[in-house]
């Protein structure tokens, strides 16, 4: 066993981190530029307008931006939790039971990914309009609950994290299915669930197409849609570039917070694998 810290690994990771951070750094630096600096100064030279931009963002239209932040939190939070739960249940079912029709079910769900969101958007809108839900919060919450990719992930994580023997033992003991799921399976799948929740949350947070089709009431817009309306509209409308850039930079912050909060759960792995 080497006593040295793996240096090469560290270097490669730092290069990767730099590559990923550079454009994000651009966003933050661009957010610090006033309109006159934005197109006249070097891309990575910090500007002087950050306080002004932040103030403009926060007070624009009586703080409508904060309304959008709350909306995004609602859509991504509630949607993320519901979706993760539904995916976990379905993934568990596919991974840990042998039943007739299992692979057919799996393939059918796979087929769901083949149809791009663009084509589903309008029919989904028409469907929800028929039940009077178009333009409501539900219209953005409900369609995101079904997430085939999340189901597949959960299948893999369930298969990897939950040993068959434990399940057999519990079943032989006469424990109810739901109890087994809630008390044994879910805690074992915690890593996977955290990952699925994180990815789903961010996906919903940055989703544009679905809210765009469903919503026309500005008060219900998530950040993505709200910032979009800051961009030039008709011929002759001036862009609110600084607001879009600053708003985007600000919108990344809750995601960072979420990531930092959740990554603690990735450390608790020593207990998870202790059953072999």
């Amino acid at each position, binding site marked *: 066993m080497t006593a040295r810290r793996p240096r090469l690994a560290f270097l490669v990771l730092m290069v990767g981190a730099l590559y990923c951070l550079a454009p994000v750094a651009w966003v933050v630096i661009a957010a610090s530029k006033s309109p*006159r600096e934005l197109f006249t100064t070097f891309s990575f030279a910090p500007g002087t307008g950050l306080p002004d931009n932040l103030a403009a963002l926060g007070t624009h239209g009586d703080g409508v931006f904060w309304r959008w932040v709350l909306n995004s939190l609602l859509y991504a939070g509630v949607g993320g939790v519901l979706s993760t739960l539904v995916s976990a249940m379905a993934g568990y079912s596919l991974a840990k039971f042998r039943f007739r029709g299992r692979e057919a079910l799996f393939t059918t769900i796979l087929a769901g990914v083949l149809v791009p969101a663009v084509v589903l958007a309008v029919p989904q809108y028409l469907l929800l309009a028929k039940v009077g839900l178009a333009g409501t919060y539900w219209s953005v919450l409900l369609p995101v609950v079904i997430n085939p990719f999340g189901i597949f992930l959960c299948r893999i994580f369930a298969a990897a994290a939950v040993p068959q023997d434990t399940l057999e033992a519990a079943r032989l003991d006469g424990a109810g299915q739901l109890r087994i799921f809630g008390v044994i399976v879910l805690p074992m799948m915690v890593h996977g669930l955290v990952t699925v929740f994180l990815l789903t949350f961010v996906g919903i947070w940055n989703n544009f197409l679905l809210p765009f089709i469903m919503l026309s009431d500005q008060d219900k817009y998530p950040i993505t849609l709200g910032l*979009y309306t800051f961009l030039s509209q008709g011929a002759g409308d001036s862009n609110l570039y600084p607001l879009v850039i600053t708003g985007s930079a600000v919108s990344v912050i809750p995601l960072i917070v979420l990531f930092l909060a959740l990554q603690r759960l990735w450390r608790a792995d020593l207990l998870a694998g202790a059953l072999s």
Partner: protein
Amino acid sequence: MTPPRLLPQRRLSAVVLAIALSSAACSSGDSAGGGPVTLRFWTWSLKGPDPTARAIVEQYHREHPDVTVKLSEVGGTPDTVAKLLAADRADDTPDVVQVEYRAVPALMVAGALRDITADVAGSKDGVDASTWAMTTINDQVYGVPQDTGPMMLTYRKDLFDAYGVTVPTTWAEYARAAEQIHAKDPDAYIASFDPTQFEFFAAHAAQAGAQWWSTDGTAWTVGIDSEASLATADFWQDLVRRGLVKVEQLLTPEWNAEVASGRILSWAAAAWAPSVIYSVAPDTAGKWASAPLPQWTPGRTAVPFLGGSAYLVPAKSRHATEAAAFAAWLGASDEGSKLLLGLDIYPAGKAGQQETLTHEPPKLMPQQKDFYQVADQVVENTTIPMTWGPNVAMASSAFEDPFSAAALNGTSFRDVYRTVQKAVVADLEKSGFTVHE
């Protein structure tokens, strides 16, 4: 052994269903005359958060206490059209919708608009006849104009003077000015050339006498490959081939940087151009000026409109009468069109246009006190009416891509125009329209 608890998921589904059913039942019904009415207004010019916009809406509410207008921003014309059509199919439309003029025929043909001729007949005189014609189809009125875009040339006066270039009054002079500028400074161009600006090229051809769409009421004629139109293609081909205009899209970071640093010296657009330039290059304020658009024939003054939008009432609006009344008030009444001026647009209403004459010039050219006089003159003299066909969106994308390729590769612009002509005619015929040869 205690029975397992119901997972929260199951109970949640039941709750969701219950709420869905009850909200469907509680959706707002129509008010058939009498009783307070809320008008849903999709617009990008009156932005909900903007105090000026809210003042306008509140003013209307004071005068019509039964009517509340709810502003919503749903994007620009292509987005609004897409959403309106979807909403129309879902029987869930707003009450007033703002779109640019070129989208009106397509919406009308889709059956999405209400004929408001009777509702707004009284307001007709508040707007210039040629502008009013932009929302009139077959003698039926489908919208009330909000603003117009009288075409003008916005240019860097200081740099023109420095290079010894006089403001061109004809397109031939424009070409010579382009030569002079580029000769003096190889990094500078009189203007950029954006092959995706379909509306601009249509307007340019119209100024030369070629309407890209025209109709006699029963059939369409497509004029993209008429000789006059092809002549305009030749004009730009020459400038592009000689490298006198820079081929790039408008309003990219590149274009913005070039405008800010004086490498792009002019923009042939409309009266709204100054505020756009100001938002990306505020430091250049005071160095610009506006002049009437160059002409094809010396001495003439005809100029088309570029851009500008109108208020339409969707066919399925549940408060159509109130909606039409509001649209008429905002776009055509003295009071409304003057209020629109506060939004930094050039109003279509006569009263608003009159008011501009005493208005401060745009922030980009505070030194040009006669800016609005020039604009007004353009409106007085000219206006070549633009007729738009029912497949403008399709034509625009059929035009952009080959024209971009031709601009980049140096191949024939005439060929592109001919190709687009064929595609547009084929599309009209495929839909079932009759097209004259």
